Structures are given as C-alpha cells and as structure tokens.
C-alpha cells in the first residue's frame, strides 16, 4: 500500500493509460461499425468532388449542404503519438482519428442531402478547424475538427 502511495503519480498515469486504451479502442470500434453501416445505407447517394454540368430542365433544386464532426484522441493514443514523435514515422493513432472525423463529417453532409431528397452532391470540399488547438500539446485538447460541404442536387423526375 505504501509503495502505491509513494508512486501515486505513476499509478495515476497507468490508470489513465489503461482507461484510455480500453474505452478509446472500444469507442473507436463502435464508431467504425456505425460509419461503415451508414456508409452502406447511403451508398446510392453519389458524392463527387467534380463540378457537374447539367442539361437545362433536369435540375429541380440545388442547395448547400454541410456536415461537421469533432473527434478527440484518447489518453493512450496521445502517449503513443508523443513517443512516436521521438523516432518519427507514421503516427497510426492520429491517422485513424483524422479518417474517422472526415468520414463522419461527409456522412452527416450526406444525411442532410438525403433528407432534402437529393440524388447527388457535387463539388464536395473538406475543411478542418482548430478549436481544441494542436493535438499534441500538453494541456490542450487533442481533437480533429472536420467540415464537409457541397452542393446537393435535386433532380426533376
């Protein structure tokens, strides 16, 4: 017991490390499952980055649609990334974070377009913001903030 108290800092660190790992990977797995499922549902709604041109009389309506998501990193991954900073190379833990944020933002945009009855979204663009500031700094909230926007096209039947 005394040893535990003497190394309280280390104990807290390890505890956070384990909590971060368990809940972080659980949350990530759940998120990926939901992303894949919703992506499959919305597969019919095409999203392209190109600017399409349409013959006159084919388009009924067009509107800007957008979606955003802020995903934060967990304690475990943050430590991993800090370690990775020493040796350099791929920071896998951040890659999955960015991937999740972007895909979630695109999905939310698609959901909005789907609600409006759109058949496709053209000229999709992605943008990132920084509210939580740099993900790798101490006392900063490590988060990725993605915005996706595009023009939803409702076709004439």
């Amino acid at each position, binding site marked *: 017991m005394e040893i535990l108290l003497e190394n309280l800092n280390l104990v807290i660190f390890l505890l*956070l490390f384990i*909590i*971060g790992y368990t*809940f*972080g990977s659980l*949350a*990530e797995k759940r*998120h990926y499952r939901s992303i894949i499922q919703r992506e499959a549902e919305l597969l019919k709604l095409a999203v392209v980055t190109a*600017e*399409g*041109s*349409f013959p*006159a*009389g*084919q*388009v*009924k*309506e*067009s*509107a*800007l649609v*957008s979606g*955003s*998501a*802020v*995903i*934060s*990193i*967990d*304690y475990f*991954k943050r430590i991993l990334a800090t370690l990775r900073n020493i040796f350099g190379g791929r920071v896998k833990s951040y890659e999955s974070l960015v991937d999740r944020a972007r895909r*979630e933002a695109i999905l939310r945009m698609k959901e909005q377009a789907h609600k409006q009855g759109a058949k496709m979204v*053209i*000229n999709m*663009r992605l*943008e*990132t*913001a*920084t*509210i*939580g*500031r740099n993900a790798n700094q101490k006392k900063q*909230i*490590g*988060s990725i*903030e993605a*915005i996706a*926007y*595009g*023009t939803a*096209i409702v076709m004439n039947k």
Partner: protein
Amino acid sequence: MIMTNVNTVPGKKIVEHFGIVQGSTVRAKHVGRDFMAGLKNLVGGELKGYTELLQDSRQEAMKRMEDQARQMGANAVVNIRFATSSVAQGAAELFAYGTAVRVE
C-alpha cells in the same frame, strides 16, 4: 436565397453579378465545455459540445453572408467557400465567402 458551392446555380441562368460577399464569426468555447472536453479527452470519441460550436459558427457565418447578399439585391450566392483560422487560443474563426448573383 439559393446557396451553392459550384460556379453556377445548376438548372438556372445567372443574369447579374454583384461581386464578393462574406461573413465571418469568431467563437470561443466556454469553460464548462472546455472542462467536459478535457474529461472526454481521456477516453476519446466525439466532442459533442465542439461539434455544436462548429455548427453554430458555420450557420452564423453563412447567415451574415446571406444578409450581405440580400442587401445587394441578390437572390443567390454561388461558389461558396469555407475557411478557418485560429485568431486567439481557444477561439476559432469561421469564414464563408462567395459571389452574389441574381438568377432568373
């Protein structure tokens, strides 16, 4: 007001250009949200408070841009772009700009 981020309003013809319109907003998160985000940061996952903040600021920026376009007598804004910058720590600027036009 029709908003698109392509060069034209698909299916409609542009009859008049008014030039650039813009709207921006700088938002900071409040301490409570910051604290919650800090806790959430341990386990990872979505920061709902920040997502909301981002959504609100995007809508606000677009609304300001729309107001400006309306003042000019436009009924559509084309080629909208979003940009972000970090003016101060903990605050985010969201910036929307586009070309105000009148369509048939």
